[in-house]
Each structure stands twice: as structure tokens, then as C-alpha cells.
């Protein structure tokens, strides 16, 4: 599982963090992909919450869309923070991506529990970024 980009988007669809190794034009394109992924997140979220039978709110949105050489996965928290994971085109099991999202959720909660973090602002915590990096390197 080669992670190209991890995006965290706030409830107002404002990006809180877009972590990628790319820069410049490539980064911009990846931002576009993350941005576009929100459409698919929104498409999937009401469908899930509308299902009355499953009382459990399914956070994991699965594969949002594939592009020619990338795969985009999504995850939504109870507070409508959205995580977008951009992977390369290799085969990935859903279990792995799901596990990654759950771990990401954990460190994200740690980051926003910081009393010095202003809710809704961009995440600039170095600790969080280092956590994220280690998480990416593990998976």
C-alpha cells in the first residue's frame, strides 16, 4: 500500500491538512483529487445514514473513485471530518485501508484534544505530523 496523500477535511469541507510528499504542480493536482473526492464522500454519507436498519454509523466509505493511476479511499468521522486517502494503483485490501483510517482517527483525536488547537483551524502540530508520518511508514 503506497500512500500518496492523506487529506483531512473539516466539517465545512475546509481542508485541515493535506499531507503529501509532492510539491508544486503535482501537489496542486493531488489537492484537486482530494477536493474532488469530497463529492463522492457526500454522495456516500447520506446514503449510509439514511439506512435505518444499520444503527451503526459506518465511518469507512471505501473506495471513492479510481482514477487512471490512483485510488481514492474515504472515511468520515462522527463530527463529519473526512479523511481522504490517495493510494497508487496497486491492489489493496479494504481491511488495510480501514485499519489505517482507524489509526488516523486516533491520532487525529489526540491532535484536536490539544487545548492549544483552535477547532476548525489548520493542523500544524508537529507532533501530529510526525505521528502521521510514522503511521504512513508502517502501512
Amino acid at each position, binding site marked *: 500500500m503506497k500512500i500518496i496523500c492523506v487529506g483531512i477535511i473539516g466539517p*465545512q*469541507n*475546509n*481542508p485541515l491538512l493535506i499531507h503529501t510528499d509532492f510539491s*508544486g504542480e503535482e*501537489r*496542486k493536482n493531488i*489537492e*484537486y483529487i482530494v*477536493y*474532488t473526492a*469530497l*463529492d463522492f464522500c*457526500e*454522495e456516500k454519507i447520506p446514503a449510509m445514514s439514511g439506512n435505518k436498519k444499520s444503527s451503526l454509523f459506518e465511518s469507512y466509505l471505501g473506495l471513492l473513485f479510481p482514477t487512471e493511476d490512483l485510488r481514492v479511499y474515504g472515511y468520515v468521522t462522527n463530527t463529519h471530518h473526512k479523511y481522504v486517502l490517495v493510494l497508487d494503483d496497486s491492489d489493496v485490501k479494504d481491511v488495510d485501508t480501514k485499519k489505517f483510517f482507524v489509526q488516523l482517527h486516533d491520532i487525529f483525536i489526540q491532535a484536536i484534544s490539544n487545548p492549544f488547537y483552535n477547532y476548525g483551524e*489548520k493542523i500544524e502540530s508537529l507532533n501530529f505530523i510526525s505521528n502521521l508520518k510514522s503511521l504512513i511508514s508502517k502501512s
Partner: protein
Amino acid sequence: MTLLLPPSKTLLTQQEYISWITQFYSPVVLIITNSEVEKIAKKNGVSFINLLRCFSSQKFIIKTPELSKKNSQTNSSESIKQIDDFFVRFLSLKQAQKPNSKKKHKILNSIIKNNFKSEKINKIQGINSQRDAINFFQYTQNQNLTPWFDIYRREFFKLLIGSEQRSIDQPIACISVVSSEVSTAVEAVRILTKQFDPSNPPRFMIENIMDLDILRYYVLVHDSSTPDAKAKQIFQLMKHTFGPNSCYFLKINSKKKPTRKKRNFDQFINNFLSYNPTKTFPQNFGAFLTTKTSKIFPNLLIHFSKKGFKNVFKSFFGSKKNDSQNTQNLSQGSLEFKMRNLADYLFFLRYYDKSFSNYKYASEEFKSSNMWKHLGYCQEMIILHWIYAAYLRYFKKKSLRAANVYIKASSNDSNLTSALCLEQSAFCFLLSSPLYFRKFNFYLMLAGNKFKEAEHRHNLIRCFGLIVSSLNELNWKNIDINTNYWIALNSFYINDYEQSIECFKKILPNLSFSSEKQTSYLKDFTLAYQSFSKTTNQNELPYFGLPKIEMDSVKVLLTSDHILTLGKPNFNDSFWESQENTFVQQLSSICPDIIPFKANTDRIIQRIHIKNYHRIVKKLDTRVSPIYEPIFVQFVIENPMKTVLKITNLHIVGEFENQKQEEENQKQEKENQNQKENLKSNEEQKINLFEPQIQEQTTSNNQKENQGDVSSKRELKIQNLEEKVTDHPLLDIEPKKKTKSKKKKSSQNQNQNQNQNQNQNQNQNQNQNQNQNQNQNQNQNQNQNFMIEEKFLKTESINLFLQAKEKKIISLRIIPERIDTLSITGIRLILNDSVNMFIKFNLKGKRLNQTRKQKFDPIYLPDNQLKLKITKEMPLLHVRIRDFPNFLLDNSIKKTIIDIQNIGKCGLKNLFVKIPNNNYFVFGEKENSENIQNIQNIQQNEDLQIVRIKDEDKKQDLSITNLKIDELKPNESIQVPLWINPTTPEKFSVPFLFCYQSSERNIDLNYRISKIGAEINSTSSLFTKTNLRVDPNFADKIILMVEIKNFYHKSAIELLQISSVSKNLEIERIFDFENQNQNQNQNQNTILQPSQSTILYFKIKENEKRKKSDKENEFDDELIISNILLNEENKIDFHSQFPTISLIQKGKKPEEVKRRNRKERKENTNENQKENQNKIENKIVNQNQNKIINQNQNQNQIENEIENQNQNENKIENQNKIENQNKIENENEIQNEIQSEIESSNESDTEMKMKMKMKIKQKQFPDQKIKLKQKQNSKQKQKIKLKPETEIETETENEQKDTILSKNKLNQIPINNETKQNNLETKIIQDRIQKILDKSPNTQKVKKMQNIQLYRKKPPLKQRIWKENEIGLMIFWKSKQDDFIGQQNILNLQIFPETRLFRNIIQKSHRKQKLKCDEEQLPIKFEISSQKSIIHDFDKNPISQIPVKIKLKNVLSIPLNIEIEIVSPSIKSLNLEKKQIFSPNFFWKGFDHFIQNIPSKTEFIFNVEASFINYGVYDLNQFKFHILSNPKSRKSSRKSSRKLHSIFSFNYPFQHLISITKQD
């Protein structure tokens, strides 16, 4: 070929969709004309084919068999189908020619470019949600979103015609047209046949394998302007040749020639329709179509009707199989093509289902025979059907498919096509459900990029504009900046500079990437701006965040607001404001000229209804600044970018309110001005400016004054250079003027003299020019400050570079030169040498939070900071403090000089200084000039001086000093010495405030205030402690013991001199009895190494002159100073160096007047009234009685004295004068009285002393003797009652009653019972003391020593007032290393301890409880008893413990809570051998602190143990007593004794000596 998908108009109805299909998939009719026909047609301005196109849409009625019914057997049931909008495409031969692909693209490109109407991006609303999308569609409901796409598509389809596979474009008919102007009829027929010859068909028909067997019609066009005889002849021949049904006669141009030749198409059509009412043509026109179809279809239709659909299919299918082998060589006649053609025709006639199936079969055929192109065509038509069906049913879902199709189509070679396709696909995403607006944005971006490659800038801006507006409020920074940048860049290329700049403005302050890129962005921006400024008149950019100005940081400071700081004083603005306000309030009482006008707006606003506040605040809060005085505008400027910003010509912009109006009035006259003159003057101006400019004096009065100022200031500066001067910004004002030209000055002067409108206008123009020229100058000399001169306003201009992310605080001056209201509007600057910017200051005032509305919506007060009232000239004080020390030793004296200079343009008066912390500062020369005069040498011995204190000095509030300057004219300066004498070791900040007024009356600015904030850091130097012992028998011998310790760790301190200050006492040195060689050791004692201490002994005696003097009034305001030199070698006359008296007399912090005192003051006044009434009576009253009464009365008086000392002082003096004689008479009797009292009661010392004090007072206030008789009696009775309690009789009466003083002293001495028994121990001590006294010059016999309590008197409210029997000590010293000269004040050693306070409290508490007690006693009696002498061997037992019995008796009639505290020994003798007498080197075992409630009149006994660790004589007086509030008078809940607060504390004056000696 997939460009058949939904039209660009996004919400097409079914009808629209169908009409679109029918329009584009309509039958083609080939028109073949010749040049003559075109000629005729051109008379109408169009080609013949375009002329025909007007009629391309027709109502069309066909009779067809009902095809929809399956297996309909009835032949006759022909139904009539009406097609309302049947289209026919007319095609000329030229158009039918297939252009090559390159040419195609070119054509399409130009079409898009020509047809695109660009829209401003800011008008576009972004799409962020479903609702936005709906709004968007509603907004664009009646508009075609992408009209260029429609055009593009139409043209594209046009260009498709002629491609081989599109059978639908195959002409179904051919109309040959010939003009009647041919030479002969035969010729015409020949032409017609030649025009379309099936054997020799047009090339494209061959290439595309088209069916040549099409309908043919022949039209003869006749121009009605020519005779038609020939035409008819030709027409006859045509009919004859081609058959009458296929020949038509068209008559056009029936109207006379239109007046204008060239008209546009619409007009032409109108003309054509209205003026060509040829009846034949329209009828025939429709007719030939009818005939055509009827001819084309009959066979097939009949076929259908007879066999039915299935049969037809079968026959076709079957035949296909048979002929399959032959179909290798395809021709137009083969079955597939027939099939396809049939499908086409069915399509035309809108039998869509049938055509669909036909296409389907045909496509299979084509597929099997690998005819891909034809297959493609068929499939296209099939898709068309699908889409049609989809459109009808579930169009919206299909739009995603459509989008995908478009996306696939976008992978085209042509950038333009792919761009258009991507754009369409974006719109498809918008149409889809759910709405993919982000995909919409994404594909728009892709489309934009393609447009960028295709160089379609307008389209690019449109696409990106949509994205930007939808991203607006989100934080997708990179995307946003990228899109904005491309918009900006492309707007620039299409010359839309405004939009370009708008976009740059958005992105420049927010850039986050590398500095190189930022620089390039900035370059692009400046380029865009340069082009922008060329095209528009308004070339100033408003504020957009580059450079960033922090609006909160904008401050307008007047010259008077500048605070000179020395060190780092911690004062904030509000502190200064409050200081200023209180200062002015205080001053207004002293100096009536000064009117405090600065009202506190906040308070006023609270009172006034909020509606009016704007008006009121405006009225109140406008600040006033004098003309010609610089105003400082301070703000923080920041570079948000990563590149260097160059800012030039940064200056403040201000406006005068009235000037505006005047200018408006002058405008009209201005227009009448001669422009030539201006031009001339401009030229001259320029020439002059290039010459070197030197500031020179001119003839104008104003200028002269200015110059004068400058020169004088320069001189001053030179003077000041000699000393250390902290720079004041004001001094730099004038010399910085640089770019003043002679020429302009003269012109200005002219204006001033003439005051004519013309000249003013000229001047304005000149100024404008000058500004421009100055800009030029600035380019030459950068990084310099300039003064830009506008009309009535000089503004400072600076050039600076802001490094990446740099923040700078900029302070700029403006100098108003007009009396008016100035409002500072903002700043102007030039960025990177090209971009002119005007940044408006937008300041908010305080936020209001009072009403509900204010709490919900943030409402701010208007900020009046930027509005200034300019008033006439005022003086301006420039104060400097020379040699101001930041570090000092505690109690050292430092002389600084305050340099006060008037740098204003007006005289100055009423100069006051306020130093709130005034006990550290003294103004004045060595001595206050008045005081110096009064220094007298009483004796030849210079050591004694008498100093007189003036009355006014006493009353004055010392925190405010009037510097007593009549008038300080401009540029005059004075020096005032300021002595700094910190009395506590601490770090403190001192505010100095100088208030002054203009010598000319100015209503706007009544007073001005200059401020200096200073910080002084003082460290501890000497520690002193005094002790006083008195011989009870020889009362005038009081021995003063001063212990001095050096606490300054850095250097040794040398003691130089000790002076005493008193009204009637002086000191004399006694040398230590142990030191045999006085002179040798003397100096050793005076130099104290760090943490070394010494003890000096002095004898206090009464001044002889004072003794003799009877006139008390004479020396009432005089002080005696006795100086004792400790070091003869370093003899310094301190009084000639320092303002000694002022230093002694300097005030303390004023204390609050307690309520209690106020109440009593009231009582007192009542009493005073009574006094006046009873004055006469009093004289008769027995004196003895009076005294007793007066005791009571005086209690109140004394209390009042504490507050009213100053007031009373005069009174006392006056009274003294009057009562002198009486006093003398009364003396003896009073003394007797006192003595008797002492005898009669065994009261405590303090009580006694207090009594004595009162007696003295009594003498001073003989007038105020009053009391009710009853009270007198009761008092007397009480006294009598007390008598039995006295235990022991007093010892001896002192007979030395020569003076009042001696008597008093004597009386203070407590009578100790135990002194009677002269023990061994005390004898030893006495002997020793005697030794000391023997050695001292005035040796006298001392029987006993008695400890008298010493303490510092509470600081007086204002200036110190010396009382009798008070003595102050000054120790002059010098630190060896740092050269600090210091003076340590031990002020006010009062010989008589004051217990008045205690008495008051006791009395009061009694009053409350309605209890009576004897006021003349201390509340407790204290006895301590133990062994007096002990023999102990410390070698055997290191601690010697002695049981001590302590007896406490409450003598009051109320219970008391008494706390006994052990005071830690403070004197540590250095040498125990020598000074063991004073060493309290022991400790208590058993208690160190206890609280006991003692009921009234009861005794309490407790036992403790005192522990000693060394031999010696110990004094056990180590107790301090606190009387706590009575628990019974309080609530019982307060059990904790700790919470009881102390009402009164005292030391019990006793001596209990224990000597511990070694055996043998």
C-alpha cells in the same frame, strides 16, 4: 463522432431537444447556381443560398400510411401526419466540398474566438452546494450557458457535411437555378443540365458514395426590375425540357432598389419578406417539397403498407444473405445502403422507432462487412435514439454517461475541442444527481488548462472564474492561488488590467510558495499595474494587504504625547492618563488659570443616551495640536511575502476640513485660469529643481522665524553635545527639511502676502509638480527622509526596503500649517517603484457593550484619533534630565540637572512639576534659596547652624512644585537641579509631569503637559538602628546609640559626618569607653567594610541658646543643625553642597484620612463652638480643674492634630504669641500638677509621657479649655479611685526644673520599683556607664539608665513639621569604590513616645461597650521576676536555664485578649566582651508566642524558662504586647484567635537584667 450529445443549453425541454435533432438531422437539398443568379441575389446583400435558408423551416403535411400499427392490412387507411417544423438544409456545392482537418480547426478556432462574449469573473457566482446549483440554473434559465458551444457545434456539423459515411447528409434533392439573364432559353437549359449531371456528378458525391438518383428541380430566377418576356420564354422551354412539375419560376427584387446597399441580414430579411410578395414562390416552395417526398417514398411506403414491417425486414434480411458475396464491391445500390437510406428517410419523417431498427440492422451488416465508418455512422444514429429515449425518461442519470462521453471525446488532438468537451462534461456533472460540483470545478479547471493551451484566454478566464468563485470561502489555498494567478495573467493578456490586478490583489498577500515564484508573481503584478495605470485615470490602488498594515497599531501621537524615558519605567498609557488627570485636577486648585477640560468620555457616555454619543464623543475627544508642530503617526508595516518589497515615498495623507470647502469654491475660478501660465511656471520649476538646493534664508517673516529657530537650536545642540543627552525627536524636526527650493518659498510668500485666489491656485499646481519632481529626486537618493510639502501640510516621506516577512514600526511626521481641523486619512506609497497605493486608515474605537443590540452586533465607537484640531502656536517644553542615574545606592544623594527649554513658538508660564513619589526627590539649589539666607552661625563653631523653614513650604503639597518662572520665552531654557535620594532599596519607576500654559491665552489648549518616565534602581547601602537610654536622675543626659552596618556588598563605605536636626536639641559625640586611643581608632570605626557594623554613641542635649530664649515664636520655624565630623581629614561642608533641609523636609506619601478622624473632627468643631461661648467663663474656672478637663479635651485635639497639623500650626503660633504671658504664669502650677500626678499613680511610662505631652499641649492651647463640669467631676473621682491601686511610691522627685524640656524628660522616666534595690549586677552596669560619661566631655553622674522606646513617627501628610523634643539624624557617607555620596536619615527620634493612638482606641472601644476605664493607665500591668544573678559554668553545662515568673494584670474594667510576642533580638554585638550589656543573647523556653484572655482586673501568672548559652548580663525585655479585639464583643463564631486582629501593640518599658557569671 459523438458530438451529438445534450446541447449546451443545459435544461432543454423535450421539445427543444427534438427540434435540435430535427434541425441538425434534416434532409439536405443541394442548390446549384451560377454567377448570374448570385448577381441578382446580391442585390439583396446575400447569396442565393442564404436567401433560401430563410425558408428552411416549413410546416409540412404528409400523407403516410399509419406505420405505427403493426400488421395493418388496410391499404386505404392513410393517415395524415403533420410535421410543424420541418427543416431542410440547403447546401451549395461549395459548402459540400470537404475541407481538410487543419483548415477545419482554423475555422472553428476563429468561430469560438469571434463568438465568445467574455464576462467579468466577479459577476459569476460560485457553486458550492446543491442549492447554489439550483440558483445557478434558475439564474441562467433563459440563457444559453455556453452559446459558443452551440455555434461551435453547428459549424462543426456543417463541416462534417461531405464526409463519406454520413448518409444523412446526402442530398435528397438537387435544385438547379438559372437566371433569366442568360442569352437564350436554350443556353439556360444547357446550363441547368450541366449543373447537375448524374453521369458526371459533383466530386464529393462520388467520393462519399452517394446516391446519384435524387430528385431534380429547376428554378428560373428572374429579376423583376427587368422585363420578364424573355424569362417567360425561357421558363416555357424549361418546362418543356424537364417537365412542368419540376420547373419553377422565381421572381425576386420586385421592389425598387433599397436606398442603402449594404445592410445586415436581419434588415434584409425584413425587406425581402415585405417587398417581395411573390405569390408563386412560397406556394411553390412548399409544393416542391411535397412532390419530392411523394416521389421519393411512394414505392417504399407502399411496400410497407402492403407487406408490413416484418415482411420488409425479412425481405431485406433474406436478400442480404443472398447478395452477401457480391457486396464486396460496394455501391450505392447495395442492400445495406438501401437499408440505411430508408432509416434516414424514416428519421426525417420522424418515425424514430422504425428508423432505429433499420439503423440497427444496417449497423450489423456494416459490422460484418468491416465497413467501420458506416458502422460508426449507424451507431451514432442509434445512440441518438438512445439518448432521445433517455432524455424522455431518465435524462439526468444519463448526464453522467454523457459526461464520460465528453471526457472521452476530449482526448482529441485539438486543444480547443477537448477544452470544449471538458467544459461540457463539467456542466454534465453539474446536471447530475447527486450533484458533483467539485467535479464540475475540476473539469472546468481541466478545460481551462486546455483553453490555455489553445490560447483562448476569455474562455480560460471564464472557467477559472467559476472555480475561484466557488472556492472563495474555503481554504484550498493552492488551488485558489493557482487559478487566480492564471486569471490574472490572462486578463492581462486580453488587456483587462483591472481584473488582472484584482486577482493579483487576492493572491499576493497569501502566497505560500518559494520566493522565486513570489518574485515572478510580483513582477507580473507590477507589469499589470503599469499597463493599468496607463489606461485609467484612477491609478491608485486601495489597500489589499500588501504591504500589510496593522490597523490596530495605528497611533497618532502629538508632540506633547512623547514621553522621554530614562531606563525602562513600567508605565502604560492609562497610567499616564490618570496621572495627567489628577495632576491637572490638583493644579486647578492651586492655579486657577488651569482649567481641566479633558473629560472622561467613558463616564459621560454612560450617562448620556446612546443615540447622542456620536455627537458628544466627537465634541469631546478631538485632540488639539498647535500649528507648526509635528504630529507623529505611527503604525506597523509588514511584508507578508518572501521577497523584498521596495517601498518609496511612504507618507501620511491628511486633509483639512475647511480647506476642502474652500477648494470647491475656488474650483470654478480655477477653470478660468490661464493654463499657459501654469505651464510656464512648471518649466521653471523643473529647471530649478535640478540645481543643487541649499537651504537659505528668505525675506519672509515666517521663514525668518523658522530659520531663527533652527539656528538657535543648532547652537543649543552643540552645547548639549558636551553632555550626555538622550535624544528627543523634537529636536530633529527642523534640520531635516531638505528639498525646499528658493523658488517655492518665494511663491509661498507671495501667497501669504497677497492672499489671492489666483496665486493659491498657482501654488497648488506648483506643489503638485513639485511632488512629481520630488518623486524623481527620491529615486536618486533613496533611503532618506524627505519632507513633502503640500498646501498647508508638510509630510515626511521615507523610502525603505522590507525584507521577507519583515515587520517594521514606522513613525512619520506631518506638520500642519493651517488652523483648521485636520483629519489624517491614510498613507500613500509607491511599491517597487511603480505601484501607487493609497492605504486608508480604518480604525475602530472601543467596542460598546451596553445595550442588547450592542452585545449582539459588534458596535464600535468612532475613533477620533485621526481627527485633530489645529490651534494657534503654543509653547513646547523640552525637558531633559542630565546625568540621570539608573543605579543608585539606597539613601545616596545624586544631583541631576533638569534642562527645561521652550522649543515652541510662544512664551510659557505657570510651569509646574509633579513627581508623585516625592520622598525621593528634591528640587532646588544647594539649599532652597530662601533657606540659605537663614543659615546662621550661632557660635563660632561652625558645627551648629540654624535654618528657618518658611511657612509656605509647610503647607505646600510637595508632590507638586511650582518652578516659579515668570515667562519662558521661545528658545529660552532654564536648569533646575534635582536631587535624588532614594530611601528604600528597590527598583522603582517615577513619572515626572510638567504642566505649563501659553503666555498667550488659548482656549483650545489651556495647558500642556510634558512627561518623563524614569526608572531608578537602588540597592541597600547602610543599615542603621538607634537606641536611646536616659539617665533618670540627670534627665538632660540622654545617650543615643547608633548602630550602622554596611549592607553594600561591593564596596566599603566611609562615614563622614553625622548631623542632627531638631528644634531645640543637639547632639554631641561620646567616645567608646574601651578605646584608649580615640583618635587612632576613630577612623577605623568610620570606614565600614561590606557587612561590617559599628556603633556610635552620642549625647543629646538641649541647645543652650534655646534654653535661654524665651520668645518661642522666634524659633518656632527654625531648626538647629549640629554637625559632627567623624573624619576630620575629609571635612566636607555638606550643607553648602546639598539642599539638606529640603532633603530632611521632603514629604512622604500622603495617607488617607481615616473616617474615625473625620467623625471626631465634627465633634471637635461642636466643642469649639461651645468653647467660644464659654470663653469668659473659663477664665474664672479654677485652673486645676481646667487642666484636668483639658486633658480630656486635648485628647481630641491631639487626634485632630494628626490630620490637621498644618492647619493648626498657624493657629498654634498665633495662640502662642497671645498666650505667652499666661503660660509663664501657669507654668509652675502646671508642673506641680504633673508631679503630683506622677506621684499619685504608678502608671506606665508611656501613659505618663502621653500625659506630659498633653500638658505641654495644654500650655499651647490655653484658650481651648472647656469641658462640662460633670465630666470634670467624674474624672476626678476616677483618679481618686485609681490611687489605691498604686503599689509603690515613686522614688524621688526631680528637682531640676529649670526648663520645660528637662522637666518633661524627667517625667518620662519610668519609675522602676526594683531600681531601689541596688543589686550587684546593676551596679556593674552603672559603673560602666559612668565610665563612658566620665570620658566624654560633659561628664556627669548618671545613676540609672532607663530604656526609652524609640520609633519612627508616621509620615506627615505634607511637609514635616518639627515638634519640640524631636530630633532627626543625618549620616553622611561615601562609598569608596563607586563614589556615591549618601545621606542616611534617621528622622524624628521622638524623645516622648506617643501613645495617643492607643488611648484613642481603648477609649473608643470602651465607648462602644459603654464601659468606663481609667484612661491614664496602660491596659495591663506586667511584672517579671526571677533570680537576678546566676553562677554557672558553661563548660559543664552548655545551657543555663532560669525559671522566670511572669505576672500579667488587666487593669481595665473590661476583659482583654492579650497576645505576647517575643521580639527577636536585633542587635548582634560584634564583641561580646565589650558590649555584653546590650546583648540579648538568650532564648525563651516554654513559649514564644501566646494569646491569653484576661478578665477584667485579674492577674494571670505563668512560668517560663529563659535559657542562656554564655556569660553576660541579659536584659529580658523582649516582649511585645498586642491587645486583640475582644472576642465577646464580636460574634462567637470567631473562635480562632488568629483571626482576632490587633487593635494596639506596644512594648512594655521595663528592664529586667540577669547576670550570669562564672564561678570565682
